[in-house]
């Protein structure tokens, strides 16, 4: 077995037993990147030299600390290029920040660095996290390791593809409307969006502040719990960060699911869902029932309005969040302008891609004098209704189970010129962000040879139940999903 194929907990065990070193593990992952990334194109920046140095340091630290070494010590990881990494360029896959090297680490990076992870690189994404396929990256499109003619999903497509292709043992993404769960589903890995406020947003380049949340991509549910424990926790530098204790999820997830109640929302199996996707998800639900989980139908009646609500609130916030990119302090600056105002419009006109500009325009319009009440204010009211739907459902069930995406990975180019069809890719993931809830996606089968995602949505701060359900399903199904591309790709 190639070391790059290991999960976090498998690598951990070998490192602890002294059967391998972080240096060897890192070399295996870098070799995999070397072998595959020309095809997959998951990475915007590969930090091979830094990674080797960090691996050496991790091995030295392990020699010192032994059994006390933190769980992620020496584990090679990839980080979505929207999370600030001190000294390593953080582009948001935008021309605007193509050469931007942040002077500080995001809180999640401080936490991971305290664990002693090995950063192998920064991953590709849709520009400023706006998109569902990475086709809106200003640099290139990431390929789905299961079929390189297809998208990996997005916006965190690079992070999902990197883990699926064993180019990282785990990775981080950000999820504003499904940007972790949808690519996790399309690439056949586990992806979680924690409850809004669970993970500090300090240092996450903002897309939509009230919706953004950082979360992990992993090869299995156990890894998800391990990484989650490392990145969660209250942060004084983020006023929206929740003062919630971090549970021992790795232990809690192993509790029996017998007697748990899950709700199946009929609104998540509507027109547009691919029959094979539905079949896989329904089969998974049956498997849960066989484990003693009580399954019942629930309704989330305002689901239809989630898309419209999201596409007002997210662009509105984005229009302000992206106002800072003016070419004056950092980032791309047009050199042709005669006046300050011309410099502004040229810099932003040339530095942003079309999807980003579309959303800035929509958001600016929605907040404009005379339109605010009809759009932004109304959207906030509907947002409350959507959250109430979930609250009512959670009075009856412990979690919601549904597909992550109505379709398997679509072909590159298929939706990129039709914003509406692209936006529909996130139909089943958006409501969770709008309501601020936790959600997890895990693979539950293949349809036309491509992974299908099973999604659990939970009560605020009840990641524990989601991990229990996901772990129980993973154990019961016994399947491990690996794209053919990865096998024997790198010779080490």
């Amino acid at each position, binding site marked *: 077995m190639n070391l790059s194929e290991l999960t976090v907990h498998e690598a951990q065990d070998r490192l602890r037993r002294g059967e391998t070193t972080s240096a060897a593990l890192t070399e295996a992952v870098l070799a995999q990147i070397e072998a595959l990334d020309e095809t997959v194109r998951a990475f915007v920046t590969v930090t091979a030299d830094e990674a080797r140095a960090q691996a050496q340091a991790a091995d030295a630290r392990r020699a010192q600390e032994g059994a006390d070494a933190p769980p992620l010590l020496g584990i090679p990881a990839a980080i979505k290029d929207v999370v600030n990494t001190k000294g390593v360029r953080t582009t948001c896959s935008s021309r605007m920040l193509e050469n931007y090297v942040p002077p500080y680490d995001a809180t999640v990076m401080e936490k991971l660095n305290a664990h002693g992870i090995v950063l192998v690189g920064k991953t590709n994404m849709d520009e400023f996290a706006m998109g569902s396929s990475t086709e809106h990256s200003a640099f290139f499109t990431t390929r789905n390791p299961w079929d390189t003619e297809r998208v990996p999903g997005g916006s965190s497509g690079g992070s999902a593809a990197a883990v699926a292709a064993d180019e990282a043992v785990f990775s981080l993404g950000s999820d504003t409307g499904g940007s972790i769960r949808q690519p996790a589903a399309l690439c056949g890995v586990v992806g979680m969006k924690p409850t809004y406020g669970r993970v500090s947003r300090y240092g996450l380049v903002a897309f939509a502040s009230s919706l953004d949340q950082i979360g992990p991509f992993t090869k299995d549910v156990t890894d998800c719990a391990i990484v989650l424990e490392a990145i969660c926790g209250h942060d004084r530098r983020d006023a929206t960060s929740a003062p919630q204790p971090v549970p021992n999820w790795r232990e809690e997830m192993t509790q029996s699911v017998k007697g748990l109640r899950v709700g199946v929302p009929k609104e998540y199996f509507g027109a547009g869902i691919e029959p094979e996707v539905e079949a896989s998800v329904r089969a998974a639900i049956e498997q849960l029932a066989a484990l003693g989980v009580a399954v019942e139908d629930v309704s989330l009646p305002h689901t239809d309005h989630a898309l419209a609500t999201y596409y007002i609130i997210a662009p509105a916030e984005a229009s*302000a969040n992206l106002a800072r990119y*003016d070419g004056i302090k950092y980032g791309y600056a047009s050199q042709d302008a005669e006046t300050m105002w011309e410099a502004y419009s040229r810099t932003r006109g040339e530095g942003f891609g079309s999807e980003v500009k579309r959303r800035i325009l929509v958001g600016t319009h929605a907040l404009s004098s005379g339109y605010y009440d009809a759009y932004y204010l109304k959207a906030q009211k509907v947002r409350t209704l959507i959250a109430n739907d979930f609250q009512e459902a959670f009075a009856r069930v412990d979690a919601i189970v549904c597909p992550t995406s109505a379709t398997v990975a679509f072909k590159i180019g298929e939706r990129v010129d039709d914003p509406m069809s692209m936006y529909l890719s996130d139909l089943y993931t958006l409501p969770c962000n709008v309501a601020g809830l936790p959600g997890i996606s895990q693979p539950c089968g293949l349809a036309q040879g491509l992974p299908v995602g099973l999604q659990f949505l939970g009560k605020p701060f009840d990641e524990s139940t989601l991990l229990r359900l996901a772990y129980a399903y993973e154990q019961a199904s016994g399947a491990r999903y690996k794209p053919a591309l990865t096998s024997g790709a790198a010779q080490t």
Partner: protein
Amino acid sequence: METTVAEKYRTVIGLEFHIQLVTESKMFCTCSAQYAAHPPNTVVCPVCLGLPGALPVINEKVIECIVMAGLALNCTIPEYAKFDRKNYPYPDLPKGYQISQFDLPFCIGGRLTLDEEDGGRTIGITRVHQEEDTAKSTHVTAPSGERYSLVDFNRSGVPLMEVVTEPDIATPQEAAAFGRKLRQIVRYLGISTANMENGAMRCDANISVWPAEASMGDVKVEVKNMNSFRSVERALEFEQARQTRILEGGVDTRITETRGWVEATGETVSQRTKEEAHDYRYFPEPDLPPLQLSPQWVSGVEEKLPELPAAKRQRFMADYELSAYDARLLTQSQELADYFETASARAKNAKAVANWMSRNLLQRLNESDTEINDCPIAPADLAELVLLIDSGEISNRTAQEVFDHMFDTGKSARKIVAEQGLTQISDESALETIVAQVIAENPAAVQDFNQGKKRAIGFLVGQVMKATRGKANPGIVNQKLQEELRQG
């Protein structure tokens, strides 16, 4: 009877103040708010530079300062408040929006009553809210002719308090008086230096003139760039006259616009019209959760309020029997009032201390452009001077001389009196000798006195004082002269 131009029109003025708060750290980060002495762009961090990914965190001290000001201005403190983003692009605004407060500010619906001397009217306060300051732009033209702008982010994120009045102000003089009163209160609270000159306190004014009998139209002119209350008064006088002249012309050609005051020419010039005005697209700041200010917390702040100028003035009149004029003068600032109370407690003669302060001390401070805190005469020293007079050790006339020495040298009264031998001569036998000598040397005056010109005695007293270099106790001299002359 013909009405004058002044009677034909009424002026409507509303004011907006931006006041920098003197907190240790900035509004949303841990950078020092005391940036003035530092080189440009050295008191900065990812938050106040608006770097990608940085987030604001509220400085609670700022909220306390603003609520304190609101309470001092008789505002209501609503239980819920929130922050909003005010969007507009400019290089001195690093995030492209300013964190401010739109529809749920910390303080609403207050009032401030002006001193009787300033007309005594009560001016409504619409709101007091929080904003963050911008960076500072400097526009440069190089000797080569190249023009560029420099931006210093040290000021970025410094907490500002905005105070907005109702359009209750009727004259430029009243506007200036309101500004001074507000400055006085803010300084009493110790929440700002409130200096107009260095921009720690900034004033924008909305002014419009209307026919006295007609209702107000919707034209409003905003005047900016005034860096003293004198400028506020002058700019508004100019604007009042300009608008009145337009109305007198018969056709109202005024437009809603922003005009800048140009100190050098004494004029306002148009800067921006309504068509060019920004749509700020306010919306709730998603990075900062709404705040709930409990009544208990607000009462806690209220308990920290110091005695305010109006109450202090009343107390000085009642407790120290000061005139309204002296009481106002001595309560100008907390520091001056404290000086007075410290000195009068030691001297046990408040009126004398008040007199020395209002007639001498303030003048000397003014002439030398010295703040009361830097006064070379400590309160205890002024008290000592008063005690020396009250115990008869020095004459009032000598005291004046001693006071000037004290101010010039910082020495104590007793030391100056000792060094210069200024102790009053009250020794009767010593004075009798001098009186006898003066009588002998001034026969003409003695003759005048004896012929009934009683006033001649004044001349003779003066001669005794001259001979003693002012140290003779004038009461005893007078008495001795009367005795000697009657005998003679």
